[in-house]
């Protein structure tokens, strides 16, 4: 069907991986017991009575933690292949990886010194 024949396997994979969630929803829709009542409309708070206000102010520190985590995680992922082939690659590769790490360190210095990101250094 496609220009390259390997794409047929991909098509099969796509169909099967689309069918499985649909199957899951159908089966649970048929087999699960459904009961209606006023208590089903309450918001869930680990089984106890819900108390307090549902709307809190968004705290930006959570987002900053996640952002910095993603950056350094991706850096780690890029460093894994370099580490695995470290013994067979020469000085040139080492210099390039060093430059990469240095650029990331610039970001680290910025995140460390900036007062908005102070939650990270404490």
């Amino acid at each position, binding site marked *: 069907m496609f*220009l390259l024949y390997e794409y047929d396997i991909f098509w099969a994979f796509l169909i099967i991986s689309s069918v499985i969630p649909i199957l899951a929803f159908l089966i649970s829709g048929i087999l699960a017991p459904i009961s209606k009542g006023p208590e089903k409309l309450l918001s869930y708070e680990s089984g106890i009575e819900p108390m307090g206000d549902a709307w809190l102010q968004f705290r930006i520190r959570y987002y900053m933690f996640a952002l910095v985590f993603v950056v350094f995680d991706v850096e780690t992922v890029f460093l894994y292949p370099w580490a695995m082939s470290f013994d067979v690659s020469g000085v*040139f590769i080492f210099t390039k990886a060093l430059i990469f790490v240095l*650029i990331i360190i*610039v970001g680290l*210095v*910025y995140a460390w*010194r900036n*007062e908005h990101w102070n939650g990270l250094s404490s």
Partner: protein
Amino acid sequence: MFNLFLAVSPEIFIINATSILLIHGVVFSTSKKYDYPPLVSNVGWLGLLSVTIAHFFWNNLFRRDNFTYFCQILLLLSTAGTISMCFDSSEQERFDAFEFIVLIPLPTRSMLFMISAHDSIAMYLAIEPQSLCFYVIAASKRKSEFSTEAGSKYLILGAFPSGILLFGCSMIYGSTGATHFDQLAKILTGYEITGARSSGIFMGILFIAVGFLFKITAVPFRAAISLLTLYMWAPDIYEGSPTPVTAFLSIAPKISISANISRVSIYGSYGATLQQIFFFCSIASMILGALAAMAQTKVKRPLAHSSIGHVGYIRTGFSCGTIEGIQALLIGLFIYALMTIDAFAIVSALRQTRVKYIADLGALAKTNPISAITFSITMFSYAGIPPLAGFCSKFYLFFAALGCGAYFLAPVGVVTSVIGCWAAGRLPRVSQFGGPKAVLRAPFYYIRLAKRMFFDTPRTWILYEPMDRDKSLLLAMTSSFITSSFLYPSPLFSVTHQMALSSYL
């Protein structure tokens, strides 16, 4: 091996300069000893210096040629101009973040890569950081909802075409197995004529063209309402961002993306498919830019519309695939960059005193006649009035378009150029504001601004603060070029002819 480092040394210099600038800014602005100085001007001047020095690192190696040289020099000079616009508005709007300045050399580095990119992967890898930095600085004024709106609209308007572009590149790779433009040029030459058409290649080229056109805020596919909405977002982006950001984003990406498109469409895949799309988009941009700019009341939005329209004119330059076309494109880009720097410098100088609407310009001629004259020179140059540089660029563009056989486009271009000058004679605003001397027979649009400045008696007199030294220097240089280039245009013409020739080889 070390030739590689020498070849990309302008970019390496800018990358190093940006990192050092960032560390310098953050270490010194958070140190208790110096009592936490906000380092905006400091970092700003250093950024300006680094961008101007970067072109000394030019090295004539690797995949560069004269075309790249011209575009990169133009880009660096325009960036230097826009940074020098930032200083005063940072003070005025109490803008304490020096990171804003650091985020200007960073996309410049990406744009330098983009201009010299000869490979689809390199092109995409360079487009992405450039767009990303622009999304951030468009939303950098945190207390203003306009700025946030501009940033989020720009994010969506920019991420979507990046995806389309990449999809087109991957389809071309899947069908031909080649990403480098040299290889693509060999494979795709005459593929329409020989009958070996593959729908994958055709769709790939189409997607790449659409992606590029979105990025350059063209007016494609006006029949589809959703895409029309996306087009309508572009003026909102221009208006909501802080003024130096608008200046930067209306000059710099246009230069680099135009260079990139001309490389892809003329060097990489030469054929009639793209040409028709580009011609159609040029016509649509010209018409819409002229019409939409008529009905505006604020100062920044008509500038946005006229810059979109002018980019439409410039797009006819690479739409015709001839050498005159590329030469016209380069001339148009150069003059467009100068005019836009001029216009935005004046607007950002006037914004200090809360000028937002066109009606506020009414007192300009009497309180500050020199800036009124400069503004009207810039507007006349946009309109394409003869003794100014805008006329030269438009003339050469239409000349090149006629030379390649686009007999429909050139008259449409001329007509929209005139329409852009003409507003409906009976707008109620005119009758409100005009005295007996001021009601002209058919007030031209750009001339309407001049009329508003010179002839109308304003309802409120606004006291304008004098312009600062950097901006006035910038304005002097650009407006003197605009007025004097008609007398002596040959250096520009011969330089761009050389650049155009080298881009073909």
